[in-house]
């Protein structure tokens, strides 16, 4: 197997993009990644998207993208793996390069969710639940997260104050990120500690409230991969090495898990990624965790080994996960503020880490001297999870 490097990264601002089609967004992000790397052609393209067939009534999106961007006759595949589609597509691209079969690969992830009503977007995401034993009841992903949160609070003493602190932290960072969907600052008083908070932050899926959830977003992100030993001839960028990845699955239904608070797929995916990278959690300088709901940032930080079970929430309150803290988490704003166009998210996390490891971000958002980054892309309600360990390479 060959070592694989990320040599190009591109993203378009997430949010409501009524003017763009799904393929427009994928094309814009792809061109940015190609231009960033300084390459004009690739051997293969992996596109991450979950909902084109449902929301846009468009299929075969990878074929549409290579045609639109002028990348013919590159091989092109669509990767659909729910909210972990992005991580899965990057993983497939990495395998393709590592195997020696392809040298230059484009991975692009995108989703267009705002052209339907909130009801329909919620229903679309809920189609990943079990079609006979979950979906008919009206369960939603916020509902799944609500049931998980109740148990996690009971077992590990997580409080609403801890969840609110994550919402505030990630929206603060989102306000500094020009690619973020949500740029609004919020206060503890406004969403927890005042009579107004009942109106500002109503229950969404008890015990979770509105500000515990990521927004429904449009957006796209892309990266260019190549063998590490060809970096110097292909690009002027500092390479970011894909030091390790992991992927694991868990039961489709929440009811069948022996302990529903145990996110086994998160633990396993992270262990694989760390083992492959020969890296320990304590060596990570910056992490992008899948905070579709605030509780997940705490639960994932504990399951991957950054903090012991029951300590993740305390670490948030102590400021350990802020920029400048022991381990900055979701300096991008995370899904909570950058947004969660589901197919784009896993790729956007890798783009953010690439920028962090190349030390290219403005001072207010750059993790100083970051050399190792980590991401978790969480599909389903934890039934399909992809993790990456990325490292800064030598120019």
């Amino acid at each position, binding site marked *: 197997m060959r070592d694989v490097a990320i040599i190009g990264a591109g993203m378009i601002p997430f949010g409501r993009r009524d003017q763009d089609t799904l393929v427009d967004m994928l094309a814009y992000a792809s061109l940015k990644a190609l231009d960033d790397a300084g390459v004009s052609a690739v051997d293969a393209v992996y596109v991450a998207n979950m909902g084109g067939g449902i929301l846009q009534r468009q299929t075969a999106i990878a074929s549409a993208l290579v045609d639109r961007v002028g990348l013919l006759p590159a091989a092109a595949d669509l990767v659909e793996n729910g909210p972990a589609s992005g991580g899965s597509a990057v993983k497939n691209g990495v395998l393709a390069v590592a195997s020696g079969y392809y040298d230059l690969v484009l991975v692009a992830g995108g989703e267009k969710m705002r052209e339907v009503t909130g009801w329909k977007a*919620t*229903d679309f995401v809920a189609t990943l639940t079990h079609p006979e034993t979950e979906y008919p009841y009206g369960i*939603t992903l916020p509902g799944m997260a609500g*049931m998980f949160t109740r148990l996690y609070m009971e077992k590990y003493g997580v409080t609403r104050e801890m969840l609110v602190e994550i919402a505030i932290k990630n929206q603060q960072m989102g306000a500094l990120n020009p690619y973020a969907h949500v740029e609004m600052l919020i206060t503890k008083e406004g969403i927890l500690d005042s009579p107004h908070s009942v109106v500002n932050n109503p229950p969404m899926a008890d015990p979770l409230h509105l500000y515990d959830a990521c927004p429904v977003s449009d957006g796209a992100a892309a990266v260019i991969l190549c063998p590490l030993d060809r970096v110097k001839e292909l690009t002027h960028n500092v390479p970011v090495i894909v030091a390790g990845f992991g992927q694991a699955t868990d039961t489709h*239904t929440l*009811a069948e898990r022996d302990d529903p608070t145990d996110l086994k797929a998160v633990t396993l995916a992270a262990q694989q990624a760390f083992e492959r990278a020969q890296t320990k959690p304590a060596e990570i300088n910056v992490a992008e965790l899948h905070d579709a709901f605030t509780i997940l940032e705490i639960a994932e930080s504990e399951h991957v080994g950054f903090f012991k079970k029951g300590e993740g929430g305390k670490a948030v309150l102590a400021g350990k996960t802020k920029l400048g803290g022991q381990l900055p988490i979701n300096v991008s704003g995370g899904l909570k503020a950058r947004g969660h166009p589901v197919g784009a998210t896993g790729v956007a996390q890798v783009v953010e880490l690439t920028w962090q490891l190349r030390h290219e971000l403005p001072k207010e958002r750059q993790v100083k001297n970051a050399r190792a980054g980590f991401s978790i892309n969480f599909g389903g309600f934890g039934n399909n999870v992809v993790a990456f360990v990325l490292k800064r390479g030598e120019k």
Partner: protein
Amino acid sequence: MKEITAYKCKKCGRIHYPKHERCLNCQHREFELVHPEGKAKLLTYTQIFNLPWGFDERFLYIGVVEFENGVKAMGQIAAPDGADVHTGMLLAAEWRPVRYVSGEPVYGLKFVL
């Protein structure tokens, strides 16, 4: 509760619902068919206010229960807003409409306080 069929592994005894072709614990392929029995103990629940397309209610209570014979399942909880719903409580399970598609009822588990 004859409407729900669960699958008890003939080798290790693990109970599955829904169906799997192989036991999630020991990969055995033979199962005894069992139905949920007795009261349903509420393991976790949520009150959802942002419902998906297809529901006209203002909110839904949804929970996961474990029946006395070990079958675990998700269903709706019939409860008014502000009702005393809590984990560990015992509920009765009924087979009732849980949603309507094109005016036709879709039946499923409804847990009653």
